[in-house]
């Protein structure tokens, strides 16, 4: 569908990326996951008000809680990265700066997710 001549229609001349639907689906699926995990986390932590540090470690150390927490961190960082990418692509110019920022967002999300999930694993491992 390319090949329209002349003008400043970059959209007409650049080949489509063919990967955008994955981004869009990822946003929706991670949002659906967070719709379940955020209330679960809020309810769990809210109902355990006044927990001491050791109690919290015990709570995280239970396999189902650790799994849920790891899933939450992965979904949250993934969803945040996808959303921030959209904001950057919408508003940041020039496109070279936008591309660099998108890479930065992805890197920050990977670091954040690895650190969060690593912390959960570390706590669980410390309970054994």
């Amino acid at each position, binding site marked *: *569908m*390319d090949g*329209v001549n*002349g*003008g*400043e*229609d*970059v*959209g*007409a001349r*650049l080949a*489509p*990326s*063919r*990967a*955008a*639907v*994955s*981004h*869009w*689906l990822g946003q*929706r699926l991670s949002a659906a996951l967070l719709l379940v995990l955020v209330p679960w986390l809020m309810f769990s932590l809210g109902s355990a008000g006044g927990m001491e540090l050791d109690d919290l470690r015990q709570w995280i150390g239970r396999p189902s809680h650790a799994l849920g927490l790891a899933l939450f961190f992965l979904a949250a960082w993934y969803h945040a990265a996808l959303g921030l990418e*959209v904001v950057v*692509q*919408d*508003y*940041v*110019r020039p496109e070279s700066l936008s591309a660099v920022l998108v890479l930065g967002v992805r890197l920050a999300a990977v670091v954040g997710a690895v650190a969060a999930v690593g912390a959960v694993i570390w706590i669980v491992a410390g309970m054994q």
Partner: protein
Amino acid sequence: MVQFRLPREARPVTGREHAAPERAARPRRFVVYRFDPDTGGPPRLDTFVLDLDDCGPMVLDALLKIKNEMDATLSFRRSCREGICGSCAMNINGRNTLACTRRIDAYPGEIRVLPLPHRPVIRDLITDLSQFYRQYAVVEPWLQERTPPPPDRERLQRPADRARLVGLEECILCACCSTSCPSYWWNEARFLGPAALLAAYRWIEDSRDEATAQRLDALDDAYRLYRCHTIMNCTEACPKGLDPARAIAGVKRLLALRKL
């Protein structure tokens, strides 16, 4: 960053005031955007006071009266005066619409008439829509066949298949939708905009078209399609009552189903 305000030289200043005729029974103020590239200077907002008892009922009638009787230099596009050609698309009291289908008495008080937003202004209410038309061409808005047509008749369509095109094929390309879309404002070079995407979906939905996969491939792009964030200004603005936002959602749904 994208530009959120007009450059200083493009911000309109207060212009001339053209008074109402003597003994005007129903005077009404029309504030009209004026820009003449030949004389230079910033655009201005001229005020024309018309007597509605001596003017047709539509906003386009008022503009024609201004041009014929008060200021012949006022420039705007118009043709069919019945909402078919889309030529007189402009921004009236903050909304993109067709001047020929908007009644003056539907607006209380002063009526502000500006060109379609975020398009280069050629003169007065005339904007440059070249980019808009190029984007329309990108979706290849014509029937594409892979198999030869029947030798003895045209390609037929069942009534149920034809019904799927209702609400998609009535677009008159007035550009009211695309130029009301913030995503289009910020990404006009790469986002195709609601009008072109509505046209794309019209051909995707056409049972006779045999290029659906290629059409979807061409739209699976972070900018061409997915700059749409379902703001729905397009649907709000469409003077033909069409729903480009729904059509765009249809394209996204088909792409997602194909992926899954």
